[in-house]
């Protein structure tokens, strides 16, 4: 009698467990399909570019497809719990997480879904420059080993680096051309740009820019143009330039100066860094931080801790609406990823 009772209560507990597993299975399916839906929405609307560099898009497509498949698979196991695919594989230990773990899963994945679906997108702004600093001329490079490849310390490109760490000019050694067939500036560009350097592209762009009296810099060319202008600064002094970016002004800049900057993203927003050109606008009202502006002016150079950097003397500062594509990407990737899609 007691035996029978125990067996029936066991069966009841088993059913209870089964119901719990079914309920949690259903939640997992909803979370997976939710993630697939969220990511698919971002991919289809193009808003995924607010979160990632375009080169990560194939990976996001992969995970979206995987979530969809996993969700559908989970749905199938819920609807048709055939022996071979049922939750209990007969191996005698729990495959389902503990109660606390289930709560954590629901809360944390729920956080991703709710912030993703219900909060508006926001483009990263001058806050990044405030926290991480801004590069006003070019990427620094380091080197060791061997007497022929001298260590070269560039002056600090980040504004706050200058305040906290004085730069020792005695340590700076100029590098000559390291590769035959490249002129000095191109060799310097190559040294400095790393992945940003593409021989054909930068040559073309350099020649193109050098041939013009007025440089109109597009979004795609922002980083490269900025770096080429820094490299050939003496040649560019006095020419007209026309470009767009957002305003960043901080305490280290003079009253009538501001940086007009773009945010560069390599993979995801965690690695976002800010690049900009210093603009001096003597007689013009300065727009507030984060306003998008179109600058027209002349290129000058200014001394900035032992280094010549470009300074744009603005003739006009025009406030414009924020662009569709707020970030800029290293060219080497954008060349392969963006351009075929644009055609």
């Amino acid at each position, binding site marked *: 009698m007691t035996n029978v009772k125990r067996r029936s209560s066991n069966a009841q507990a088993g059913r209870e467990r089964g119901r719990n597993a079914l309920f949690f299975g259903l939640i997992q399916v909803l979370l997976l399909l939710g993630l697939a839906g969220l990511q698919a929405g971002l991919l289809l609307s193009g808003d995924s570019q607010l979160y990632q560099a375009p080169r990560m898009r194939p990976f996001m497509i992969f995970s979206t497809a995987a979530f969809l498949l996993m969700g559908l698979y989970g749905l199938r196991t819920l609807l048709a719990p055939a022996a071979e695919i049922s939750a209990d594989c007969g191996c*005698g230990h729990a495959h389902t*997480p503990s109660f606390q773990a289930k709560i954590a899963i629901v809360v944390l994945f729920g*956080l991703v879904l709710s912030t993703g679906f219900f909060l508006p997108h926001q483009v990263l702004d001058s806050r990044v420059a405030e*926290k991480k*600093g801004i590069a006003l001329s070019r990427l620094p490079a380091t*080197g060791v*080993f061997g007497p022929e490849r001298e260590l070269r310390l560039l002056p600090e490109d*980040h504004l706050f680096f200058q305040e906290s760490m004085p730069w020792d000019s005695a340590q700076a050694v100029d590098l000559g051309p390291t590769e035959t067939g490249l002129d000095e500036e191109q060799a310097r560009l190559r040294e400095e740009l790393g992945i940003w350097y593409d021989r054909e592209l930068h040559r073309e762009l350099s020649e193109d820019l050098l041939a013009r009296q007025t440089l109109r810099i597009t979004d795609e060319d922002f980083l490269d143009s900025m770096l080429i202008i820094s490299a050939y600064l003496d040649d560019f002094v006095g020419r007209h330039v026309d470009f767009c970016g957002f305003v960043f002004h901080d305490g280290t800049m003079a009253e009538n100066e501001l940086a007009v900057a773009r945010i560069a993203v*390599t993979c*995801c927003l965690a690695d976002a860094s800010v690049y900009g050109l210093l603009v001096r606008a003597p007689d013009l009202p300065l727009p507030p931080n984060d306003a998008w502006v179109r600058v027209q002016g002349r290129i000058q150079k200014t001394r900035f801790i032992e280094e010549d950097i470009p300074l744009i003397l603005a003739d006009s500062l025009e406030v414009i609406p924020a662009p569709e594509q707020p970030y800029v990407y290293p060219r080497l990737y954008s060349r392969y990823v963006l351009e075929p899609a644009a055609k």
Partner: protein
Amino acid sequence: MLDALLHAKMIFLSIVFESFPFILLGALFSSLVLVLIPQDFFRRWLPGSPWLSLLPAVFLSALFPICECAIIPVIRSLVRKGMPLAAGAVFLVAAPVLNPVVAASTLFAFGLNPDVLILRLALSAVAALLVGSVVCLLRDKLEADFPRELPVDHGHAPKSLKQAKTWHEIARHTISEFFTVGCYFIFGAMIASLFQTFLHQAVLLEIGSAPWSSTVVMMILAYLLSLCSAADAFVAASFGAAFTLPSLLAFLVFGPMLDLKNTAMLAGCFPARFVAVFIVSGSLAVFFLVMGLHFLGVQ
């Protein structure tokens, strides 16, 4: 304030979306390991002493093209299958750095200058051996913590890929692994995004530029920023001017091995004592190796 929170949310989701594909791959590999590797695989192929498994583990980690988010569940599965914990620790340090994608991005980010890459790979390999050795020394205590019921009495015998049942098992394990690991990961990404939004990097940089302080600063920064090992070289390159090469290497070697998001995942996947030993020995190993480079005059 509201703006700052939205900013944090953008970075949070960005890290999450970026890492999901790799966590999925990690969950899949780890399920394949659990389901397909025979129970006596490691007992048969590994040398008797765990000390002898350290060096092969370094070479094997160069063969695994796997990054930091994906590696943790895979290593847990391998250890469950009987791989020595010390070899697992070696993988956790070395595998995220010793792989082709990271090598390429490091090379590109530092202007095709191979020095940074060579030093990065060498330091990671040595740090991995050091951490592995510490785990090896303490193996009696650490191995006891680790539940290894699987290789002994679990019914997951080697399966044939021709059976539908095997595939169902892999699918089920992948889903549950994704949720377990993903849960810790999301928590880590949340904390990292808050630091990304609210931490003034200048505050950290003001701590100092002496060799030891800049090394510590770079390690803390690598830990808090929680970058993916394929992208961190670009960020390190942008610090270039302000830091000497050894300090940048502290960033490049320490970040992939330990940061906010993978500490959360480690804590979820491994016993607390192992995680503590791993964090302490890993931090000390990187710190003293980098100080050694400073001492040798590498700049």
